[in-house]
């Protein structure tokens, strides 16, 4: 029983990171109605950026987030402005646009393999004094960096919520997500909003990357496994839903850590795929029906 509780808690901690990655994806989808296939690659960029900040300047990973997150925001903003926007504009009248999906899949292959060519396929880790530290809660051990990542996710989600609900920029973003044309009539510069939304989505992913670095291997194709999980989570939680993303993340984290007790750990992802396909087929609006809640 104690083992199960410990597994469940570990699953929730890891799942919250999945949720944070999915949050960026779902934000981009909710506003722009496009799927960013390069999302995992941006996570990889966030992780590598944190890694190099730490190794070159000796900064603490959490301190280097102060630079990595704005960097990711700028990267996302520029990618959206110069690559995605032209394709997006061409397809504005198409009923089921997939141009952006294709473009971002090209970006994904480009980014992953460029990193692979430059840094090689080796696994890197960031050494921190607290990597091995764990807290004891009753008789359950919690790894410190995972706990920090969980706390970071909660804070980031709360900030996102306040940002989207309370600030005028957040309101403009939500309005654009709800109805582009009406938002435009209200004087919102929708393409600027798209740039910002994409930037924020990538910044959240960069944040997740930074929070992952203290306890996860860093390698060029690290994004892919997270990418697939983020898609699964976003569909589970309902595309475009913030609470859905976090809850979906925790569900996938739980499935992974608990199922690993009963089968080979590599097979747990198959279980996640099956859950994903079933949800897609029988409840495409997501498990919680939060759809369109902005």
């Amino acid at each position: 029983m104690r083992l199960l509780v410990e597994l469940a808690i570990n699953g929730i901690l890891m799942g919250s990171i999945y949720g944070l990655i999915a949050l960026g994806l779902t934000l981009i989808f909710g506003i722009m109605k496009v799927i960013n296939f390069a999302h995992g690659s941006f996570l990889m960029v966030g992780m590598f950026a944190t890694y190099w900040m730490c190794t070159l300047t000796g900064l603490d990973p959490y301190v280097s987030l102060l630079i990595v997150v704005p960097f990711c925001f700028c990267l996302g903003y520029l990618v959206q402005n110069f690559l995605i926007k032209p394709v997006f504009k061409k397809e504005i009248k198409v009923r089921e646009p997939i141009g952006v999906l294709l473009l971002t899949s090209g970006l994904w292959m480009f980014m992953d393999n460029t990193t692979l060519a430059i840094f090689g396929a080796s696994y890197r880790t960031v050494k921190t004094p607290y990597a091995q530290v764990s807290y004891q809660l009753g008789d359950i051990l919690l790894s410190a960096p995972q706990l920090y990542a969980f706390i970071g996710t909660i804070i980031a989600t709360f900030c996102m919520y306040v940002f989207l609900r309370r600030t005028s920029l957040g309101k403009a973003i939500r309005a654009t997500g709800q109805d582009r044309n009406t938002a435009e009539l209200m004087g919102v510069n929708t393409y600027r909003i798209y740039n910002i939304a994409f930037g924020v989505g990538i910044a959240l992913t960069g944040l997740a990357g930074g929070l992952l670095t203290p306890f996860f291997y860093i390698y060029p194709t690290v994004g892919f496994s997270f990418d697939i999980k983020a898609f699964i989570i976003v569909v589970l939680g309902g595309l475009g839903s913030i609470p859905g993303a976090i809850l979906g993340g925790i569900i996938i984290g739980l499935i992974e850590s608990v199922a690993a007790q009963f089968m080979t750990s590599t097979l747990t992802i198959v279980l996640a795929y099956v859950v994903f396909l079933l949800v897609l087929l029988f409840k495409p609006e997501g498990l919680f029906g939060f759809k369109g809640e902005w």
Partner: protein
Amino acid sequence: MKNARTGVVGCLTSSKFYTTLILLLVLFSIPLIIKNPVFLQLMILVFWYAYLTLSWNIVGGFAGQLSLGHAAFTGIGAYTSTVLFIQFGLSPWLGMLAGGTFAAIIAITIGYPCFRLRGAYFALSTIAFAEALKVLVENTREVFGIPIKGAQGLLVPLKGQSLINFQFLSKAHYYYVILIMMLVALFITYKITKSKLGYYLSAIRNDVDAARSLGINVSRCRLKAAILSAFLTAIGGTFYAQMLLFIDPAGIMGLYLSMEIVFIAIIGGRGTLMGPILGAFFMVPIAEFTRFYFGGQKVGVHFIIYGIALIAIMLFSPRGINDLIVRGYNLLFGEKGRKEGNFLGGKSYDSSRCSGNK
């Protein structure tokens, strides 16, 4: 207007027959003139990718369903024929048909529910399916007592040169096999574009709801396309197994192969007759040269080029190289055509005739 959908070929109507004949002669005489195995291997790969992309194009292009998991079908084909060959000594030529049939059955069971999904959802479900299958195969050592050896992969036992066993010593044999396979796939695609199914698919791609309201059975048409596509793709998988005599899940059913197929199709021109072949002729040699120059330690370098090419195509010519060539052709020869038309009766050159497909 009859040729509006055939892209490059449509533009060459007048000299179409002779151009095709000369091209075929050249392609068939290459192994007689050039004996260099490296060059032949490159051509084999070009044809193989062109073949797979042509097969993909039936579903991904003409039916407009973006499948990102076609490697699942090459994997099914390769594994079915190889397992049958190892276990029962069944000729890969028959194993090929068995693999194709098996893949078609899988395509029906997976496609039937998934075709209800739209756009990106469908793409996601195909990735999930292909990856799930790959991970399953990687972690399965045997099925019903028949070893498939998981991630380690299967070796096709060497039985010396024989037609029955689909094993040849010279590259030229493989060259002819894959060339004919590619031409058959091209012919099938051509037939589809001329058939009722082709028109139905084109209508569905343009507007599903409108097509449905006209009485087209949308899911049946898509299923037909999926069955054909899966069958042909699986046969391509068998060819790969017989050529390399080794298959492993990561290579033959991995995401990278699926992506390569899609990228070649998009770069060449999705939903056009010649697009897949143009894409393969442009991209595969570049990919192979980078692979050659950067050696084994940097495996993915050619994907940098694929990525850049795809991004450039999406930005500047979303209909692919096919469209670029057609536009170039019109620019060069269209001017003359327009003048002639005006002279003959004020009938201006119909540029839409050669504009290929959306």
